[in-house]
């Protein structure tokens, strides 16, 4: 996806020595937040929460109380419960879609970077066509035809993330394929499959994993944007994006209905970016070289 950007050289130029390889407090705070969000999302059904879809017309936009910890929304549904169930959707789409990109883009990129030649031109060319559309426009158009469902949404966003993963995998395969250990394996008579899986994959996996986390952040935002526009997950399922979209209507009376999911989304996206960025700096060979 064109929105993913790789500005690898930056950290290396600015703070070569001082930063070192230590992970800061911020990194662990981000990890903590992600673990917390994932845990509540996984155990949403076990937690003692009211139903996220039960409406209580007498208790609309109720303030914080012992019964509704974060109050209720415009239809009298428990806000906290909706936030937690919304986290599930945002995380499921946000994690599954980049997995599709990781698997297909990673495989294509490695094959293209290893075998070169016509296959590489074909892969790069067809990915360029996918990138020829502004990603959000393509996502909107395909959802419009395929219909709105979590499955379709994940599939579309996953397909859209393939080119970016392909580029990362291809770039690192290109440099790695010329290294001594690969040449040595070739000299020893290893098959292509063995070189790709045993020699290259473990090395390409590191930058891909860091990029994966940045990809999750982007996908959560894109899913949020689509749901915000009412074109993502279909109601009554709530995702953070659709909750913000609903909260927008009552911005004057109850701004918290928009700002609570907004804060949850911001923190989660920020956490994924922080962790991904830190891992990328760790796995970036260029920083080690300095």
């Amino acid at each position, binding site marked *: 996806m064109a929105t993913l950007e790789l500005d690898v050289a930056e950290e290396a130029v600015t703070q070569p020595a001082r930063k070192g390889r230590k992970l800061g407090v911020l990194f662990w705070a981000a990890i903590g937040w992600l673990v917390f969000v994932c845990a509540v999302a996984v155990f949403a059904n076990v937690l003692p929460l009211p139903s996220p879809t039960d409406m209580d017309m007498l208790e609309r936009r109720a303030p914080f109380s012992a019964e509704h910890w974060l109050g209720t929304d415009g239809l009298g549904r428990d806000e906290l419960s909706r936030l937690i169930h919304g986290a599930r959707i945002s995380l499921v789409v946000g994690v599954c879609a980049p997995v599709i990109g990781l698997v297909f883009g990673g495989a294509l990129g490695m094959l293209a970077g290893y075998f070169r030649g016509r296959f590489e031109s074909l892969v790069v060319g067809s990915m360029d066509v996918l990138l*020829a559309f502004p990603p*959000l*426009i393509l996502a*909107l158009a395909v959802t419009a035809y395929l219909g709105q469902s979590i499955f379709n949404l994940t599939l579309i966003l996953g397909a859209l993330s393939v080119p970016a993963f392909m580029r990362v995998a291809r770039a690192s395969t290109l440099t790695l394929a010329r290294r001594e250990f690969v040449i040595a394996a070739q000299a020893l008579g290893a098959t292509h499959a063995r070189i790709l899986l045993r020699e290259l994959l473990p090395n390409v996996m590191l930058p891909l994993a860091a990029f994966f986390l940045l990809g999750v952040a982007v996908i959560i935002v894109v899913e949020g944007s689509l749901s915000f526009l009412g074109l993502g997950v279909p109601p009554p399922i709530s995702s953070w994006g659709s909750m913000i979209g609903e909260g927008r209507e009552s911005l004057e009376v109850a701004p918290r209905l928009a*700002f609570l999911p907004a804060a949850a989304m*911001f923190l989660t996206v920020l956490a994924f970016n922080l962790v991904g960025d830190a891992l990328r700096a760790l796995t970036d060979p260029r920083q080690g070289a300095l």
Partner: protein
Amino acid sequence: MALFVARRLFYLLPVLIAVSLLTFSIASLLPGDLAYTILGDQATPENVAALRRDMGLDQPIWWRYLSWLGNVLQGDFGRSFRTGQTVLQAVVERLPVSIELMLLAQVGALAIGVPLAIVCASRSGGPFDRFMTGSAFGMLSVPTFLSAILLIYLFAVELRWLPATGYVPFTEDPAANLRFMVLPALTLALAEWPGIMRVLRSDMIATLQEDYISLAKAKGLKASRILFVHALKPSSLTLVTITGINIGRLIGGAVIVETIFALPGIGRLLIGSILTRDLIILQGVVLLVGAGFVIMNFIVDLLYAVLDPRIRHGHA
């Protein structure tokens, strides 16, 4: 230069064809029958069959693609079956709004990003630099629709300084037009400046270590002149690159912003056509936006070659 342009044009053509193929296949291969959509739920099978024949939907797919492409090349993108307006009319009517929005946003983003990058680069590692680098990183995690809501809440709901939604054409009342444009453009600019600032900053930190900067300092030139003239000039290429990379995100952002602020631009046309299932408009808009995006990238490439002769001669 002429050779370079010719070569790039030669690459442009297959990409444009691929864009049209992709647009067509999204509209034709995915489930959902146009005839059913037009006629609605009460359609009888006979009616549907008749309409399909009328619209040529019973023809083989390659024939439909070629005749569609032929029409498109003659400027006929089809006609909305809801409003009767042609796609081209609808797009031309709304294009100025979107272009104004994106231009204002880009200007705003540069106005925020460039000075910040320069100040940060001149004192890199200092407290202000670290604070701004951190803020830029944080801002990259704020989705467009989120900053839109924050701005609406702050400036329209709480302070009541600016309208939250609405639009007046620039030709009717420039001042009112700008008043409506401030918040949408600012929203987009807020999403764009971190990218500009981050890349330009690291670029300039490298430039500031060059010998000719030391020479300029030794000559006793003013610090501001060195920063804004001598150091910024080599980074113009970087600025063009970031602007090019950002176009795609800007278009996506414009769709969201236009919808939130009710600006009658291309983005809202697109969303509207999805919500009303006006598939002809949708197909036409996606094709035009895709083609426009490809052509804009082409122009950025050319601009690149103008700025850097090495690219023109294939050395870089």
